[in-house]
Each structure stands twice: as structure tokens, then as C-alpha cells.
């Protein structure tokens, strides 16, 4: 595991709490053999016991201070190179400038024959076509269901449940923070700056909110959906993007009179990929409030399908990591038998 923040710890918690039933129910017996964080690593080639993971979590930073397994100064790349493992769980913070260090972690994992489960949107937003090709070439899996919809299986739903149909377009509210702000603005007539403050106080928005309110986060998710579901080889700079800074209360009032409201919508269709504040009817299936996410898949034969769920959160995203690990386990199992 590379990165030991909210998501990394969440994964450790789920593994500790659900360990016995995972082994029993799925024959799934994951062992965490190393955790790399910014200031060092812990390594135990035999796998950390759930209690030990809990203890490492409790002690806090730096994790490499652990007396038994700590390796201060050992970098994540060294761990990926030298530790015997099947999967690297990459859960470092997002960076959409150059996607580092996650991009290097992922490519190194591929070159050393390790599968990747990541919740990090940066590398996918900037280099998704390249990364999927590299994974294929090295015969490993790249899974990232936690990047879109958090705990809500939006990617799997489209890829698996709609497999025989053709998805023509995708449209959705893909960012909980901006949806919270817009909901506050329209339902409680709170001005943008005030709504943003509220979101920050509640922990929905970051101190540096640009990633959310300027639409970058939504655009990253649009890139992932476009590549994975629609097989369009695009990256972040191919998405035309407008944030919600300029959405005014007046505009929301006007929309409301028409029975509509304004949401930050990410969409991909034949014309391209866009993120922009868009007026939609209040009775539309997509029109969810608060921090909820929603996505609609427009299919050729099965009509419109909408999925609603919480889009973010440490435990929600951690559950997506577990889902991906199980998926890889199933894939490997079927490979062994065929």
C-alpha cells in the first residue's frame, strides 16, 4: 500500500474488521506486506496481522518509527521494486499538474509485474490511454473504481451491467462539494462565498477549493468515464471546463421559476467532453441534492439508467479499493482455470 492517509487507513480498517468473513465468503485472503508513506515505510514480508495494522494506524506518523518493521527513509519506489507483492494499492494525494509521484508508482508497479488498484485521479486524468496500454502490455490489471462515484459502483455498473448495450452518452453530477454548494445556494439562498465557507467548515471542501469549484475534479472523472466506458482516448486537457464560481443567486432564481435548477454537469457525447454549470429540470433523475452524486448512462436499447450515491468519503472509497482487489482476485482465479 502506497499512501497512508484517509483512504489507506480506511482500507486497513475494513481489512481488520471484515478479515474473517472475507476469507470465508470469497476465499479472499489479502495480506498487507508493506505500507509506504511520505516519510518512510513498514515492511513485513509475511504480512501484517490485522491487529498490527490497527496498531500502526493508532500510533500515527511517522509509520516508519515502528520498532519491529519500520524502515525510515525507504521510498515507495524502493518498496515497489523490492518487496514481493501481487498488487500495489496506490492511494497517495491527487496532483493534476504532473500526476507525480503516483504516476511513477504506477508505471514502476507495471514494469515489475504488479497489478494496481488506485483511487488517485491524477495519473488517470493526465495519462489514462497510456496507462491502460502499459497495463495490458505488461499483462497486469489497472483498477480504479474508487476514482468515480467513491463507494457507488458507477464504473462497474456501466462496464458490466450495460455490457451488451451501447452507451451513447454519459452525463452526471460527479462532485459532491460543488453539488452541496449549489444546493445551499438554490434551496437556502446562501451566496456562493458563504456556501463555500459552510462547505469548508463541514469538511466537504478543501482549504484550497479550486480542484472542486473550478471543475477539475469533475473533469478528471469525465476523462476516466470517457476512456473506460466509451473507449475515447482523451486526457484532462481535452475537456472543456467551466467551474461554478460565476453561478449567481439570480441565475438560480430564474432557473427555479422555470422549474429548473443549475448543477455542475460533466458530460461526454459524440461532440466531446465538457464540464459546466447546466440548467436541468428539478424532476430529472439526475437532480440530486447535497453531497450526493448521480450519473445517467444513455444507452441505445435500454434507455436511460441513473445511479445515485455518495461520491466521496474515506470509508466509501476504501470500500471501492476492496471491491477492486476482489475483482482482480476473480480475474486471476479465472485465468488459472482456463
Amino acid at each position, binding site marked *: 500500500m502506497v499512501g497512508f492517509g484517509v483512504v489507506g487507513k480506511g482500507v486497513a480498517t475494513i481489512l481488520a474488521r471484515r478479515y474473517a468473513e472475507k476469507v470465508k465468503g470469497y476465499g479472499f485472503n489479502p495480506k498487507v506486506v508493506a505500507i509506504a508513506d511520505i516519510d518512510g515505510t513498514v515492511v513485513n514480508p509475511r504480512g501484517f496481522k490485522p491487529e498490527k495494522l490497527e496498531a500502526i494506524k493508532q500510533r500515527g506518523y511517522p509509520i516508519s518509527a515502528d520498532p519491529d518493521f519500520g524502515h525510515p527513509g525507504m521510498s515507495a519506489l524502493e518498496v515497489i521494486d523490492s518487496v514481493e507483492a501481487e498488487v500495489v494499492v496506490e492511494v497517495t494525494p491527487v496532483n493534476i499538474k504532473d500526476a507525480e509521484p503516483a504516476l511513477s508508482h504506477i508505471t514502476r508497479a507495471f*514494469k515489475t509485474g504488479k497489478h494496481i488498484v488506485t483511487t488517485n485521479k491524477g495519473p488517470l486524468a493526465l495519462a489514462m*490511454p*497510456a496507462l*491502460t*496500454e*502499459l497495463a495490458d*502490455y505488461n499483462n497486469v490489471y489497472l483498477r480504479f473504481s474508487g476514482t468515480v462515484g467513491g463507494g457507488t459502483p458507477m464504473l462497474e455498473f456501466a462496464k458490466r451491467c450495460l455490457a451488451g448495450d451501447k452507451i451513447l452518452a454519459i452525463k452526471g453530477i460527479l462532485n459532491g462539494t460543488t453539488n452541496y454548494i449549489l444546493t445551499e445556494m438554490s434551496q437556502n439562498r446562501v451566496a456562493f462565498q458563504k456556501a463555500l465557507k459552510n462547505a469548508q467548515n463541514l469538511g466537504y471542501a478543501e482549504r484550497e477549493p479550486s480542484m472542486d469549484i473550478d471543475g477539475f475534479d469533475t473533469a478528471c472523472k469525465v476523462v476516466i468515464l470517457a476512456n473506460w466506458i466509451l473507449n475515447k482516448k482523451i486526457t484532462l486537457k481535452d475537456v472543456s471546463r467551466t467551474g461554478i464560481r460565476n453561478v449567481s443567486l439570480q441565475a438560480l432564481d430564474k432557473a427555479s421559476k422555470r422549474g429548473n435548477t443549475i448543477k455542475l454537469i460533466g458530460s461526454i457525447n459524440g461532440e466531446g467532453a465538457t464540464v459546466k454549470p447546466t440548467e436541468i429540470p428539478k424532476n430529472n433523475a439526475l437532480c440530486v441534492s447535497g453531497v450526493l452524486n448521480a450519473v445517467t448512462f444513455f444507452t441505445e436499447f435500454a434507455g436511460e439508467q441513473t445511479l445515485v450515491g455518495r461520491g466521496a468519503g474515506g470509508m466509501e472509497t476504501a470500500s471501492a479499493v476492496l471491491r477492486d482487489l476482489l475483482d482482480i482476485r476473480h480475474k486471476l482465479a479465472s485465468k488459472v482455470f482456463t
Partner: protein
Amino acid sequence: MKKIVMKFGGTSVATGENIRQVASIIADSVKKDRRVVVVVSALAGVTNQLVEEAEQAKKKDEKQIQEFTEKLIEKHVATVMEAIDNKSIQKEVELIIKKTVGELEKVLTGICYVGEITPKSRDYVLSFGERLAAPIIWGALRDIKLQTQCFTGKEAGIVTDENFGEARPLMNVTTHQVKGRLESLLEKKIVPVVTGYIAATQDGVVTTLGRGGSDYTATVLSVALSSDEVWIWTDVDGIMTTDPKIVQSAKMLPQLSYGEASEMAIFGAKAMHPSALEPVIEANIPVRIRNVFNPQNQGTLIADGEETKSTEVVKAVALIRDVAMINIRGAAMVGAPGSYSKVFDVIGKNNINIMMVSAAVSEGNISLIIRRNLLGRALSTLGIVLIGRGVINEITSEDDVCVIAVMGANMKGTLGVASRIFTTVAQKGINIRMIAQGSSELNVSFVVKEKDGAAVVRAIHEEFKLDQI
């Protein structure tokens, strides 16, 4: 502001004078506000010398290797002196050449000590031809005050699989890297000079692109940078309707579709290898074949779209010499699944390429065309493996034949083309020995006696009025 990837082949960089011509062509495009990426082949003949040296190195001693590398330095430095005026640039390029050849000498010495050459080390040796040529072009461009930067295919970001000698690019990874490394230079009007033919694996081990060669590098870079066109600069005006040595009135073809151009590969070095066309077909980027020594000429445009839609049914006719025909007959082949595969298997395992196949529905015989110099080997192995095993009764061959290939995209679905072709041949009193048409319908190939080949080409050229194209 157009983005053009230009590739310059071996003869266009054969001498210092030619390199000056190349530099002026590039300068002219830069002046017209085009963004240019230059792809360079090895100097004429150098790659062949390297191939030979790579094979010979295992049997040679250090002194012989040194002789070879000294000659190599001499050749390149002489070209530098001709191509570049500025003394300090001359010096700089000369130093790069000597350093690069020094590296080559170590590699060859290593091969000589170990006494073996692997596909990996062979690719490494072959990469030196382009690595020595690119700095000269780079110097010549600086000499005429252009801003430029020199890259190997690996430095430019081309990543391939590990199929040494015939590596395939990982297109998405390549696109990601090439964009990162070259795009900002183009915005600043700096001309990147990239070595053709060579690339690297994801771990940085040098690979070569095989038969697609430097053209392949050009089309790959073009797709990665979404360029507007690819210009392949060579020493002929373009692709011709036929060999002008056979038909004096042969014309240059102003345009071809991708499909037609792929069929033209049998014209050999003057056309593009189909695998080099592959990347641009998908991205629909037009390719132009142009003449370094006649830059006013627009050359042959290869593209799919309105501009290459034409009315001519037949566009070109090629004569392929030095081939031989093998006829295999066996009553037991009739209705026996797998009997053809036995034949192909034997030939394939002997590393013999089958150029043309024809078998009738009677199933009792099959005819093949292969290179003439391989005929003996093919006959003896086929005889040893297949005769007397109850499958094949008789193998005969003819080594005085040639193949005529008639090409054109509009042949597809046009009635009566074959009849016109064969009537033309019949009127000359010439017998056709074997016929094949692929289901793509872009090409009809047939076999006649070699002595009749030229006459048949002339007759078809005339029948379809190719001199008026």
C-alpha cells in the same frame, strides 16, 4: 500554422551537398510558419555496413573492428565538413560523432569477445547509423541559423514492445511521452531532429522498428503530435504508374488511397511499407511522397477522402522479377483437411516467404510464388518432408516466370476489369500461368514467362491509358 513531420531517407542525406539541400527545404518550411519535426535515416549505405559488421564482429579481432570504426568516422566527418560551414559547429558535431563511434566500438568489441550476437545487441549496433546521421542534420540546421534540438527515438519518447528487430510502438504510451517532450519545442518554433528507425522498450533498451523503418518513426510521431501531414522526402518524384525503365511514358501518380498505397509496397524501396502506413490510416493523416531534388513537385499524396477519390479503375502495374513458381499436386489432398497447412508449414519453418498463392476448388493442386533464390531450398525440403507420405504425388517448378500486379481501388466492384486485363494479355499471344485476386479486390496478380513480362506491362499500361493519368 501547419504541423508537418518530414522524413529524409538515406539518399537525401548521402552527401554534404544533399544535406545542405535538406536544410534549405526545412528552412523554407519554417519560413512559411510551419511547425516542422525532422526524422532522419542513416547516411546511404551505413545501415547495411552495420548489419554486416554486426554479423562479422563475432569472428573478427579488435584491429579489424578499429579499422571499420575509423572508416565510419572518416565518412561522417567528411560529410560534416561538406554540410556545415561554421567552424565551431563543425567541431561540435565532429566530437559527437567521435564519441558515438567510440561507444559503437565498445559494443562491437564486446560482441567480438563474447563471440555471439543477440537480437538485442544487434538492434543496438544498428541504431548507430541514425545516431550518427541526426547530429549532422542538426548541425546543418544550426549552420543556417535555425533553432533546433537533436533526439534519438528513445529520447523523443517512442516506446515499443520487446520484439527486437521488428518492434511495435505502444502507441498510447508513445503519444503521452512524445507530447510531453516535443510539443513545447514546436510551440517555440524549435525544430526537433529525431533519429528514424530506432526506439526503446519501457525499460530503455534500444529497439529498431524493422521493415517500416524511418517512415514508421515519422508516422508514429505524426500521430503522437496530431500533425497535419507527413512528408516522406526521397529521391524520386513520387509513386509511378509503373517502372519508367519498362514504360517510358510512365507517370507519377498524384494521389493514392491508403489501401492502394499499401498494395504498392511491392514497388519496393520507392514506396512505403504497409506497417509504416498503419498509424496514419487510423488517425487519417495524409502522407506525401516528395523529391528532395525537385521540391517544386507536389509528389504523391496518400490519403483517404475526397482528394484521393478518382475515376481511374487501374492506377498502376508492377513487374516483379526474380521469382519462381512451385506447383504441388496430390490426389490425396482433395477433401483432406490440413493438407495445405502441411505445405505452408514446411515452407514457413524454412523461413521462406510465400508471395502469392493460387489453388482451385478441385483441391488437387496448389501453386505458390516465392523468391527465385530460395527455390532450391523450398523444393528439397518440400520433397523430403511431403513426398512419399501419401499426401503429395508431384512437385514441379518453373524458374523463368515473373509476376504482374495490377492495382487500383476502383477495381473493387467494377465489372470487366479482369476481362480487359486478360484479353490484353491474350491479344499479345501470351499464356498466363497462374492467377490470384485477393478479396480486397484492390489487386489482380498473375504469372507469365519472364521474357514476356515487360511486354505485358506495356500492354496493360496502354490498355488502361496510365500514361494519361
